């Protein structure tokens, strides 16, 4: 043992082995700690002693010298080692892509020990590492415990699984077949369809139809082209009900391009301007500089009006637009005209072909075609729709369904059940979903991370879809099914099909880079071929239903994804449900309030849903969100929490139940009737107003040009700072602690942030953040480390004068806010909010066990093992960004958090003693829960606090890579080019988040912090936050009827000089913070 000098005498065994403690004893006479007892008895030492005494209590029970259980360590067998590149413990990345309806998201998927755990955008293909929320959340779909697991025939499992299914499929060949499939851009699929030829007729179904973009272009130009917008080149953008920052396809690219024009660094910088005309408040409208709310059916008239203002002459139906709206549109048109060739008019998928046609005509008149919008030659759609299949159904003997769910999302006038009855083979995500049939083969559909495929991105670049894992439940992909149909004698595997489709030079390079060079669609020049447009009139009165894809669950395909369900809607902040959105006035007229159940009637169809008074909603419209109200065995989509009332519907309402094929996007003559019942909604942000506090600081571009330092003239910052900080600065106390090599910091550009939520899901995926369930969210127990605060501000809204929370403390502001008039035309601000990593951190000072401490690189770290769950830190945090594990959300099923009878079994104690890892979840579910975890982040247990760590695992692994590469050298400082990014930063489509090392001169973070818009939230506390924000800028047009000189939030802050220009002299009056 050890290397003790054996010739010496020793007084104890400890001395003989040269223990450090013993040396201490000899040197110091008193052991370490004795000193501290006398002069500064720290909390931690006290706790240590207390802990030791508590430990004594149980000491007698245990035998002395117990060792940990024997564990086996297993090397790879000879053949198990998957290639020479694999190094156990080093995550690998593979280029792949997630197919979407109209394109694909190129990805780099991270594989840990063979498990895909996280996806990032493939910057090699798209230039950015961004993705939308669905790509991030798709990883969880792979590990969904409800996923279809077995191949069934006539509802009973097939013993041979996939082999039997293929055999059965071969028997089906020869009959008159219709194949129903989801939309896809896969060249391999197109090739197989061609090979199948007349043997089958193909129908494509998607709940949301984005084909209108191509149809609109065809109407205008007479060519099969798809518009490809270049928002980064546009200085003035007009959106005609086009939610390009949200529900439009490819929104991540649009957000990035749009944000390019919003990041103002100097007073001389320019900025783009966004006009939005829409009925429901969308992400795009929320980010607009000027927003016109109008009925969705009035937008064709609005488009025609704009066209007329630019010299065309279309008939604008009488009564469709009010005088005020016409003024707005005239001024907007003038602005567009002033930016010829640098403006862009975009029309949304919800709008009819006529609006798209008009948008092309307007762009043509403005000289934008070929400048801010180019046209890509895309293949024409040659397939029928679901409605076509429904009417052709009699012609066929059978239907092969490759992943559609017609009973759920087919709409009111498609007889989905008839299609199901004729279905002989079906690929399913969930075995017993709405379209579950009692006959035929039912095969689990492979996830894109477990099957071969290919796709084309929105610009046509061909990207491979590579599997990272063998199908978890032996699933099949649509390519495999089609390959059997194309060549039943010797069907090729999906891998062979994809490889055969690839006609490039280097297959390995294709897979490595994740795209095929120069494979994009050809850009063609277009000219107007048809100027005839019929403009439909707006619905004059009554209610119109506007259908919209949900921001969180899309068309319903993500409805069983817990991350998506618990993701607060970016606008309403509601989780787990969809709502019927109505304006304040409509609510008043129908006698509805937030959370009241109402019956929505469209034609003969009705559905019951909860009402939500939505600021910014157009009068006479009801926003109807698709994607919820699923039935079938989907436990997350139909989540029932413990103690939930029995007769209440779960998982929102099914909007497809009132959506007919004649009015898929906007339905006229709807009605809304109050049932008088209440419905519990879980919203993460109940209060809408900032109450005149400069949490989000904003200014107009004009103001910024006048006074670059405007952010420092808001709030109490300058005054309070002189009094010095309340909390101690860790580095002032212990200067030796501070690292001279790395000091981390973050900056978030509120001008660029669109509030898209991608960062929230990326954080959840990266940091093993659990979901908690609807009831827990209602209690404010959601676990998201990063949230996005959304505030509304109103013109001339004086929070002190209204019945806000601040003025009359006895009155609940939340209860009346939806009746106040200022919410009708609000401005919206979004603010991503996570741990600010204060230097003088309030949380650190109050922790009794030093579980939250400062590290040497400026991080406020959370030590889970020390945490005893007092929650003092959370109470003392001014930003409320700490999250407490009220339950063991990982081990317990979220519908059984409080424990049920199974928790009372005596075996629980023995289980705990023998196998503490054991969970209360079902065995198979527990495996899937574990598979999805990031191994570099601790999974937290019940009773501990957690929060944003600045992705410390990424920081450390970057540092380690750098150090290991440096070897004996000294190049160990992590700098920008080492590619360290936090998860939120990496995913941000708008590139609004910067993160880096303050100690690196000229680093991106230092440049961002030098931006004059840089400010600290709650700076009057003088906590020296490491996360700072760049103030939001708005770019209003003075000539608009709704022009404003200052953002509404600052006029709320200085209500007395709402329209004046002097500012900053009356900070002293503000005392209500």
């Amino acid at each position, binding site marked *: *043992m*050890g290397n003790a000098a054996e010739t010496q005498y020793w007084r104890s065994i400890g001395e003989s082995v040269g*223990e*450090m403690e013993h040396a201490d004893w000899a040197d110091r006479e008193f052991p370490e700690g004795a000193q501290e007892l006398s002069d500064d008895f720290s909390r931690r030492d006290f706790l240590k002693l207390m802990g*030791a005494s508590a*430990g*004594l209590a149980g*000491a*007698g029970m245990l035998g*002395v*010298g*117990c*060792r*940990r259980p*024997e*564990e*086996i*360590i*297993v*090397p*790879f*067998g*000879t*053949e198990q*080692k998957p290639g020479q590149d694999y*190094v*156990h*413990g*080093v995550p690998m990345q593979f280029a792949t892509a997630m197919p979407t309806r109209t394109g694909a998201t190129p990805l780099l998927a991270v594989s840990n020990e063979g498990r895909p755990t996280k996806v990032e955008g493939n910057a090699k293909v798209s230039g950015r590492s961004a993705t939308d929320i669905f790509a991030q959340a798709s990883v969880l779909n792979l590990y969904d415990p409800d996923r279809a697991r077995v191949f069934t025939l006539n509802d009973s499992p097939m013993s041979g699984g996939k082999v039997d299914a293929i055999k059965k499929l071969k028997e089906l060949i020869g009959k008159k077949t219709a194949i129903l499939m989801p939309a896809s851009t896969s060249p391999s699929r197109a090739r197989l369809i061609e090979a199948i030829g007349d043997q089958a007729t193909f129908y494509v179904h998607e709940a949301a139809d984005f084909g209108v973009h191509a149809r609109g272009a065809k109407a205008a130009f007479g060519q099969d082209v798809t518009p490809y917008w270049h928002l980064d080149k546009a200085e003035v953008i007009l959106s005609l009900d086009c939610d390009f920052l949200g529900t439009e396809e490819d929104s991540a690219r649009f957000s990035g391009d749009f944000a390019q024009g919003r990041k103002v660094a100097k007073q001389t910088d320019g900025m783009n301007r966004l006009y939005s005309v829409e009925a429901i408040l969308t992400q795009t409208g929320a980010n607009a500089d000027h927003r016109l709310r109008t009925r969705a059916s009035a937008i064709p008239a609005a488009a025609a009006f704009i066209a007329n203002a630019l010299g065309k002459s279309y008939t604008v139906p009488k009564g469709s637009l009010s005088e005020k709206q016409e003024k707005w549109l005239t001024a907007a048109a003038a602005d567009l005209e002033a930016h010829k060739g640098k403006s862009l008019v975009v029309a949304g998928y919800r709008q009819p072909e006529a609006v798209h046609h008009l948008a092309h005509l307007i762009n043509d008149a403005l000289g934008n075609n070929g400048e801010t919008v180019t046209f890509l030659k895309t293949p024409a759609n040659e397939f029928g729709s679901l409605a076509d299949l429904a009417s052709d159904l009699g012609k066929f003997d059978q239907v092969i369904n490759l992943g559609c769910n017609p009973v759920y999302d087919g709409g009111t006038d498609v007889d989905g059940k008839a299609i199901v009855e004729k279905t002989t083979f079906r690929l399913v995500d969930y075995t017993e979903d709405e379209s579950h049939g009692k006959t035929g083969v039912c095969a689990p559909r492979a996830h894109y991370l477990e099957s071969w495929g290919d796709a084309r991105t929105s610009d046509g670049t061909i990207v491979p879809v590579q599997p990272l894992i063998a199908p978890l439940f032996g699933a099949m992909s649509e390519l495999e099914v089609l390959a059997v149909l194309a060549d039943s004698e010797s069907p090729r595997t999906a891998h062979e099909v994809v490889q055969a489709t690839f006609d490039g030079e280097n297959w390995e390079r294709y897979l490595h880079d994740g795209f095929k060079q120069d494979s994009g669609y050809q850009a063609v020049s277009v000219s107007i071929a048809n100027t005839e447009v019929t403009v439909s009139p707006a619905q004059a009165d009554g209610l119109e239903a506007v259908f919209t894809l949900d921001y969180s669950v899309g068309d319903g395909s993500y409805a069983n994804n817990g991350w998506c369900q618990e993701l607060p809607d970016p606008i309403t902040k509601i989780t787990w449900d969809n709502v019927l959105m109505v304006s304040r006035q409509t609510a008043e007229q129908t006698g509805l309030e937030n959370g009241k159940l109402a019956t929505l009637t469209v034609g003969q169809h009705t559905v019951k849903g909860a009402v939500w008074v939505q600021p910014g909603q157009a009068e006479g419209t009801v926003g109807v969100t698709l994607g919820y109200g699923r039935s079938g065995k989907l436990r997350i989509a139909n989540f029932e929490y413990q103690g939930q009332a029995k007769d209440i519907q779960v998982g929102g309402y099914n909007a497809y139940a009132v959506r007919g094929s004649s009015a898929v996007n906007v339905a006229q003559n709807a009605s809304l009737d109050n049932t008088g019942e209440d419905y519990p909604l879980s919203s993460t942000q109940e209060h809408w107003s900032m109450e005149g506090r400069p949490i989000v600081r904003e200014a107009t571009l004009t103001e910024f040009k006048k006074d670059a330092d405007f952010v420092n003239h808001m709030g109490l910052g300058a005054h309070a700072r002189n009094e010095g900080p309340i909390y101690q600065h860790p580095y002032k106390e212990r200067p030796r*602690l501070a*690292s001279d*090599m790395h000091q981390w910091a973050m900056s978030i550009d509120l001008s660029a942030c669109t509030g898209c939520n991608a960062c929230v899901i990326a954080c959840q995926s990266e940091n093993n953040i659990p979901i908690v369930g609807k009831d827990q969210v209602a209690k404010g127990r959601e676990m998201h480390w990063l949230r996005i605060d959304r505030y509304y501000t109103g013109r001339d809204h004086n929070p002190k004068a209204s019945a806000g929370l601040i003025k009359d403390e006895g009155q609940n502001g939340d209860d009346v806010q939806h009746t106040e008039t200022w919410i009708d035309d609000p401005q919206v601000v979004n603010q991503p909010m996570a741990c600010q990593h204060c230097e003088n951190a309030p949380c650190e000072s109050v922790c009794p066990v030093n579980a939250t*401490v400062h*590290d*040497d*690189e400026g*991080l406020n*770290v959370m*030590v*889970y*093992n020390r945490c005893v769950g007092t929650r003092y830190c959370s109470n003392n945090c001014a930003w409320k960004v700490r999250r407490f594990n009220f339950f063991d959300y990982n081990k317990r099923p979220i519908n059984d958090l409080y424990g049920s009878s199974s928790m009372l079994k005596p075996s629980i104690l023995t289980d705990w003693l023998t196998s503490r890892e054991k969970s209360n979840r079902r065995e198979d579910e527990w495996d899937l829960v574990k598979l999805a975890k990031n191994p*570099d*982040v*601790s999974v937290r247990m019940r009773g501990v606090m957690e929060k944003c*760590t600045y992705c*410390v*695992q990424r*920081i*450390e692994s970057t*540092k*380690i890579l750098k*150090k*290991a*590469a*440096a*070897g*004996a050298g*000294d190049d*160990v*400082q992590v700098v920008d080019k080492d590619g360290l990014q936090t998860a939120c930063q990496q995913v941000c489509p708008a590139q609004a988040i910067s993160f880096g090392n303050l100690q690196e001169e000229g680093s991106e973070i230092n440049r961002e912090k030098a931006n004059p818009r840089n400010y600290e939230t709650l700076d009057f506390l003088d906590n020296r936050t490491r996360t700072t924000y760049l103030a939001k800028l708005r770019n209003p047009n003075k000539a608009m009827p709704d022009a404003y000189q200052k953002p509404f939030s600052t006029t709320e802050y200085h209500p007395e000089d709402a329209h004046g220009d002097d500012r900053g002299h009356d900070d002293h009056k503000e005392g209500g913070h």
Partner: protein
Amino acid sequence: MSNIFPKWTNRLPLILLVGGLVAGACVVAGVTYYFTPKYTRVGYQPVQPVAFSHDVHAGQMGIDCRYCHNDVDKSWFSNIPSAETCMKCHSTVLADDPRLESIRKSFTENKPVPWVQIHKTPDYVYFNHSVHVNRGVSCVECHGKVNEMKVVQHSKSMSMAFCLDCHRSPHESVRPQDEVFNLNWEPPVEWDPEREGQGLVDQMKIRTSESCSACHR
């Protein structure tokens, strides 16, 4: 009133107090000694399924640690070699030795040998081999002289204090980078940790972190 309690009971509170204190002190001493990794782990020497001797291979024959543990400088995890690695030599050397039967079996049947794990950090500790062995910290600092062990045993406590000792004064443990895998390296006589060790620390810009975030995430 008669004496219910005998006289010695007057001293009972004192006896209880002193006795309690002594018993308490014994338990505290017992816990601090027996419940720490120094007692529970050091010396742990399980019987392995194959009687592999590091003494013979790494010591007498001088095979580099990285011949078998070839990922140690690339990953947090120092890999255990597969039977394939053994068979590189043992397909010719001692090819029929009965002691190697299980290795041959493992190789032909592709079933890994179930080695018993000796060194293990808890799951909440993110120890990384590559950053240590690439930066002047030898295997011997944590694992002891494995090259002299016939049967590997746990030789250092690997408690948090053990890690922190080195992180607090790295100059005492660093060595020239090319001597990291030389477990027999002894500092030259003129080596003074304060001078030479500190010199290496400065030269390589070694910043050992004592913060929680260094090892816990």
